[in-house]
């Protein structure tokens, strides 16, 4: 391909896959300027992509409460009294409906770890803490991020409290946790 053709190719793919032109040039200039042989393996940029308008179904109230009221709700089984958080509309053991119960937003760390490497989507956050926590008043554990000034303050058994983002989207990440003694 000549220079003009190459530029067009970069623009086309940058638009189609959302990859900056300078990155595409880094990886494809040799190929497009004819440095590879005809029978060499040929790599191309591509992307798999689907856009959603996803329904939270019976869990909808949980996310509206987070977004609108900065409240965490659990779901309590009418029969066995197990409290789920993340919530579910039906108890998976009794097959009975659950009811919404407001939670204090405090809890305890069941297991936690520090991530030094992660996926493309989160790479700019590194390092960060991922933990399983059990919220007070529930019989369940949930995955969450913990924010702490010092990682040494965090351990199994550490008490934590919910904090809410200033800008909330109706997603689980509207809430994060901090150790209580750090406040």
């Amino acid at each position, binding site marked *: 391909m000549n220079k003009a053709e190459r530029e067009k190719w970069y623009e086309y793919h940058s638009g189609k896959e959302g*990859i*900056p032109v300078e*990155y*595409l040039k*880094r*990886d494809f200039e040799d190929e497009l300027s004819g440095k590879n042989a005809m029978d060499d*393996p040929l*790599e191309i*940029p*591509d992307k*798999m992509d689907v856009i959603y308008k996803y329904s*939270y179904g019976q*869990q909808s109230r949980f996310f509206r409460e987070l977004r609108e009221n900065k409240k965490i709700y659990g779901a309590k089984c009418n029969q066995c009294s197990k409290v*789920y*958080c*993340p919530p579910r509309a039906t108890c*998976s053991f009794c097959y009975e409906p659950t009811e919404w119960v407001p939670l204090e937003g405090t809890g305890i760390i*069941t*297991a*936690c*770890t*520090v*991530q*030094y*490497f*992660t*996926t*493309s*989507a*989160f*790479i700019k*956050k590194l390092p*960060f803490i*991922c*933990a*399983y926590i*059990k919220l007070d008043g*529930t*019989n*369940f*554990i*949930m*995955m*969450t*991020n913990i924010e702490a000034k010092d990682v040494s303050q965090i351990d*199994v058994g550490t008490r934590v409290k919910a904090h809410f983002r200033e800008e909330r989207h109706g*997603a*689980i*990440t509207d809430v994060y946790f901090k150790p209580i003694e750090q406040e």
Partner: protein
Amino acid sequence: MRKVAIVGMGTTKFKARWLDKTYYELAFDAGKMAMEDAGINRKQIDCAVYGIYNDFFQRQYQPDAFVHDYLGLGLKPMVRVNSGGATGGSALRIGYSEVASGLYDICLVLGVEKCNDCYNYEVQTTTPEVLRAILYTADMTYDNPAGRTAASGFALAVIAHMKKYGNPTEEQMAKVSVKNHMNATKNPIAQSPKILTIEDVLNSRKIVEPFKFYDNCLYTEGSSAVILASEAVARELTDKPVWITGVGASADYVMPGNRPNIYTFESSRQAAKRAYQMAGIKDPIKELDLAELHDAFTGTEIMAYEDCFFCEEGQGGSLIDNETVMPYGELPVNLSGGLIGCGHAVGATGIMQTYEVALHLRDEAGERQLKNARRGLVQSIGGTLCTWTVCLVLERED
């Protein structure tokens, strides 16, 4: 149920990048090798089971259809299974059922995975994008948005185990890494043969507490296949049949809140128990000669010693310290190098592990051949905190 034997098998090399093959071209190579090994051609195959994990890796939904076409198996029944890291084990379990039930006499079980077409253009490596593809399998509503990875999920379980039992220690985990990389030096298909010291592992860069770089398996491209046959057909085809005498499987609650704890993998315990029961094994450490366990991480190999009943709960770390699981030990684990040394080509992995055990049972493992190998275990696990486990017991004829 009818007896089922492995009558043929083949595998490609496990490596980071098969730049010159698509996933179905890679699958073709393994399938062809397995058919040649069994002395059959494509027309003699009655049905197929494909183990392919991640559609994002392959850049293709329903990739099984294209593998089936490329192998020239059109109009024969087939099904694709996907159970995360346990995909290969699950494919074998379904293939076993196809033949044991009497529905079919000859079944091709083929796993393939090609992950490293995923690519992060900013950092110019594949791994962060491979991880992004994997994380679509974490709960999208509550789990994925926290940015956790497969490694951090298992790290949380290992940390819970350490808190409960005081092991595995980081040094014990490093010993497992040294062992598996060392074992890989004798395996011609392995991706990561290396002579490492415990310090090399401990000093390698942190990935997720407590795992360092060498505690983790790598992302691998590869394909492995076996041909399963009924007893009557097996007798005609080979004088070295490898019998599948135990099959156990379990799928745990994926939401850890529904489990009593996260420091044991109950699906692994259930699957092992069932496989031993079926094979008539009462004392696995005495009655098994070798095992291929799913060492996606060093810490989970140590947890697997417990979950497969090689020792009491909480004692896993002792088996690497006292060298039980070394190639010269009482029960060698991961002579192939495992996922850490040989590689983890997800859908193919359980089939590669089975290939390895069968190779020893057929006395064809070359430099790493275990003497008098008569019976071996394959453990295939996958999913958030080991949602799925499949265990297989394989035995030689005499």
